[in-house]
């Protein structure tokens, strides 16, 4: 399957993404329908990315990627600190009031889905090719 020719895949993704967004907007956090919609849509995209070996043919970045590893370590360390210190707010504490609004939740869902679609369309190789 060639991703660039997969218009049906894109149509299915758009339909699933729209349905997922509507469910998340309508039911909100801590609800079974929202959990099912996000988990199923996300799992489908993740499996697609693994099946298509997304990113396998991406260009290496070598040492130029080291600063991003440092940034990731700093982000994890800061989040861990906010989790351990009861006075500090975690990222979830800060975002939950914002995501309580359906419009914000819908926009966040669309952004998350767009990121997933971008990830699974990184240059890869179909099964059977080396």
């Amino acid at each position, binding site marked *: 399957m060639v991703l660039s020719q997969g218009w049906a895949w894109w149509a299915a993704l758009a339909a699933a993404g729209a349905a997922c967004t509507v469910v998340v907007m309508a039911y909100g956090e801590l609800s079974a329908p929202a959990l099912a919609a996000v988990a199923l849509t996300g799992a489908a995209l993740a499996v697609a990315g693994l099946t298509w070996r997304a990113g396998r043919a991406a260009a290496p970045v070598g040492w130029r990627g080291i600063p991003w590893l440092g940034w990731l370590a700093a982000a994890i360390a800061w989040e861990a600190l906010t989790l351990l210190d009861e006075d500090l*707010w975690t990222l979830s504490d800060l*975002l939950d009031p914002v995501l309580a609004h359906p419009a914000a939740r819908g926009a966040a869902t669309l952004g998350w889905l767009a990121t997933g679609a971008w990830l699974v369309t990184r240059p890869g190789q179909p099964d059977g090719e080396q």
Partner: protein
Amino acid sequence: MSGRAVSLLGFAALIAAAVALEVAGRRRGRVATAGHALAAAMRTTGGRVAVLSGWLWVGVHFLAR
């Protein structure tokens, strides 16, 4: 300063650092852009699993949990 303000400052600093890295990557090329770094992390099966799992966790944690 409240704990909320301190947390906001910390996360704002992280965002500012990410923007600075991205700008440096686009202007000088000495640093990879976020997109290039993320794609490169997916070159191996382990990296692909880690990146896609992280993305899935973000969705479940922030949008549905």
